[in-house]
């Protein structure tokens, strides 16, 4: 975040997400809320640090729906609200999102959906541009950090002007691109406001909803006019006499510009930054000025369908190439190579007169060599590994393991493999409910602390009420580790004026009416084995809260306090090379050495000691014991 708080006029290097924060500050944001999720997390990480200083309110809400609803309250009270989340987070918030435009805003409200084409860190690669259509909410799509910042600033103005929320749709390649941005002036927000009641607008009972829907359609007509004249919709290479056109949005525009230059292809490019409502007239004029048009966009043919409908409506004779024509894929993110390949294919087949610069580079001859894969793994000392190991030790072989979203999802990897299905936040509990009725197999579900607060509690209440029979393991490491250690409702904080009180998971579970609730420290393997055996044997719903701080956080805190971290070692005199530690437990700090003895890296080991409990011959000892013995 270095530099993004600097003064007006300065040019700094910023990540797309940092540019978004700066844009929000320049727009005078008052109220920001989120639930962390890649690729949007850095926005919250920075706001969390600067909120007090910048004079705005920021919260990590329990989930995206709560984050959005809080933002709605702020904006209809006259404040500038920013709500941001990853793409699947908008599914959670969608109930509020889809009705939101019916009530509109009073201050301004920008909602960011950070999409993840290529599923770099997500369970799907859904295209959230459809949400803008579904909910009748104007949408902006940036293609670079500078544009992301400009669109946030303009998005707040537009929102206020149209009395509608604005959806800003970024993607991983914009959010995680670092590029120069020029800083504008930071505007201090209003802080607090006053809510003026207006029942005929905000109370969405059927009669009012019907009336508001009509008003919404009118508002979107105004938005249509805005889109026609928006600076974010423009034509590059206008002067080119070419009859080939390209229509692109998001990062695909950047790829198109680089590829056209590389191939020395003459083409006009219609860059669309405001893509709901589409600038229909502008598109129509553009289509009339060319004979062939290539539509470039990642994932679904959102623009392509619109362009085809505009061409059809206006009876324009133009060849349209995109996903339907088979030139570009529907799945995964685009790359410069994919864009180049598609453009070359179109030109060679359909525009044989067009010159193409030979762009081929002589690739290095690939000599195939078997390379080991490098999947992400649970860290050394991770309490989740200990929990899953204990469960696997005592569970029946055909036990079903409903899994949830978080670091612990990684236990699906070898050697633990205690994960059978993961869909979305909270789905472990819901699917466990179903499995317990649909099968006679044992069911042991996993959910993290942050995920439990986010979407696990309704499922738990359902299980209590319906009398379902399964074990729910709540992995409580006191942080939202996967997305970068953000706090959650279970963590007490004293880092700002509003002290945040910790909500005790154990008490919540008890309060939901669960009779069998146990608390364990997964580093105490012996006790964990006993408790999980009891939980499995229990006839009915049982919940085990497995509580130990994230090993990364704990180790960092120990180092900061100056505490020494004492690693373990394998005593080769007593080791029988059974490899329980390396092959069954599978901590990445241990491995099978060249002499076939297991070894522990003193640099990686964080001294959790669980491998010592796992060892059947008691051969894993603290290094300090070895030194004492000498």
């Amino acid at each position, binding site marked *: 975040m270095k530099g993004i708080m600097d003064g007006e006029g300065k040019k700094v*290097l910023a990540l797309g997400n940092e540019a978004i924060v700066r844009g929000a500050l320049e727009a005078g944001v008052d109220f920001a809320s989120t639930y962390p999720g890649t690729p949007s997390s850095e926005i919250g990480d920075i706001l969390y640090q600067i909120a007090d200083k910048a004079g705005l309110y920021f919260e990590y809400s329990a989930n995206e729906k709560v984050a959005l609803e809080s933002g709605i309250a702020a904006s209809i009270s006259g404040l500038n609200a920013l709500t941001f989340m990853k793409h699947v987070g908008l599914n959670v918030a969608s109930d509020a999102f889809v009705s939101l435009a019916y009530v509109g805003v009073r201050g301004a409200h920008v909602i960011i959906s950070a999409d993840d084409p290529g599923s770099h*860190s997500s369970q799907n690669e859904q295209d959230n541009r459809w949400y803008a259509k579904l909910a009748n909410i104007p949408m902006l799509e940036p293609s670079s950090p500078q544009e992301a910042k400009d669109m946030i600033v303009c998005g707040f103005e537009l929102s206020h002007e149209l009395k509608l929320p604005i959806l800003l749709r970024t993607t991983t390649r914009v959010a995680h691109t670092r590029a120069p941005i020029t800083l504008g002036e930071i505007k201090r927000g209003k802080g607090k406001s006053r809510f003026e009641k207006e029942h005929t607008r905000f109370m969405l009972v059927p009669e009012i909803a019907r009336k508001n829907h009509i008003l919404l359609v009118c508002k979107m007509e105004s938005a249509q006019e805005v889109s026609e004249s928006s600076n974010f919709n423009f034509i590059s290479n206008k002067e080119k006499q070419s009859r080939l056109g390209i229509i692109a949005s998001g990062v695909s525009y950047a790829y198109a510009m680089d590829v056209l230059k590389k191939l020395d292809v003459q083409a006009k490019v219609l860059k669309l930054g405001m893509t709901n409502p589409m600038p229909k007239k502008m598109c129509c004029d553009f289509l009339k000025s060319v004979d062939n048009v290539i539509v470039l966009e990642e994932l679904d043919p959102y623009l392509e369908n619109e362009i085809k409908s505009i061409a059809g409506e206006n009876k324009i004779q133009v060849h349209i190439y995109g996903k339907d024509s088979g030139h570009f894929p529907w799945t995964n993110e685009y790359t410069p190579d994919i864009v180049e390949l598609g453009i070359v294919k179109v030109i060679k087949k359909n525009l044989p007169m067009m010159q193409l610069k030979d762009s081929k580079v*002589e690739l290095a001859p690939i000599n195939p060599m078997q390379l080991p894969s490098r999947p*992400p793994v649970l*860290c050394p000392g991770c309490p989740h590994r200990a929990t899953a190991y204990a469960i696997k030790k005592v569970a029946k072989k055909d036990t079903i393991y409903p899994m949830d979203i978080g670091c612990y999802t990684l236990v699906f990897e070898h050697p633990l493999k205690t994960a059978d299905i993961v869909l979305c936040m909270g789905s472990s509990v819901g699917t466990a409910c179903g499995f317990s009725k649909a099968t006679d197999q044992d069911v042991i579900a996993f959910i993290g602390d942050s995920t439990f607060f986010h979407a696990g509690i309704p499922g738990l209440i359902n299980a209590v009420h319906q009398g379902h029979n399964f074990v729910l393991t709540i992995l409580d490491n006191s942080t939202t580790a996967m997305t970068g250690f953000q706090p959650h409702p279970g963590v007490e904080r004293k880092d700002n004026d509003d002290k945040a009180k910790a909500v005790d998971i154990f008490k919540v579970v008890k309060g939901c009416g669960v009779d069998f609730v146990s608390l364990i420290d997964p580093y105490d393997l012996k006790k964990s084995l006993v408790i999980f055996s009891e939980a499995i044997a229990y006839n009915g719903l049982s919940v085990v809260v497995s509580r130990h701080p994230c090993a990364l956080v704990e180790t960092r805190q120990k180092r900061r306090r100056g505490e020494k971290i004492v690693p373990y070692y394998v005593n080769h005199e007593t080791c029988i090379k059974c490899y329980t530690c390396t092959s069954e437990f599978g901590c990445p700090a241990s491995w099978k050495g060249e002499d076939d003895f297991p070894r522990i890296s003193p640099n990686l080991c964080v001294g959790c000691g669980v491998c010592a409990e796992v060892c059947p011959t008691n051969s894993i000892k603290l290094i300090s014991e070895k030194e004492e013995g000498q």
Partner: protein
Amino acid sequence: MTGECTNLVIVGVGGQGIILLTRILGETALDSNLNVMESEIHGMAQRGGQVMSTIRIGDVHSPMIGEGEADIILGMEPVETYRHLNMASKNTTVVTSTNPVYPFTVTSGDEEYPNLEDLLSILSAYPKKLIKLDAEKITLDSGLPNIVSNMIMLGAILGACPDFPVSYETIKETIKQNVPIKYVDENIKAFELGITEAKKHS
């Protein structure tokens, strides 16, 4: 370094300081009044996964680099260098560390790490120039902590590519601004050692 832009790819694993190098190069380019675009993928990096960043200095719109279009590949780990050779052409300079970081799939005995000498000898058949550095040994011999290996590798780029678009002095200044004051000296020393070592091997 095709005249108009320089395409650099840095690959390795979590914890090797790749994001810091990326930022330093980007800020240096900006301070030298050059356009720069960078991309990072680091979602799972902290959990032992791969990290890759791309840096493009010059007149470009996107931060992404196509197949065979890297002018320089900086590999912080030999297998990861090899894995990304599709980014290289005959015109590419490859700078690689020779220090393996074994993935969990190898330490658990499920997969094998290739023979390092074989891997390095295949590597040398590819690019215009290959610089292999034992960064671990260099730090050890010069009494530097292993953590500054990334600065050795950064220096090696400069040593290997005399026409790199940003100067040694500006990078040094950016390093100073990006590392805590008490670690500046060792980082600068490592950076300079990297330049010397790469020149030796050029």
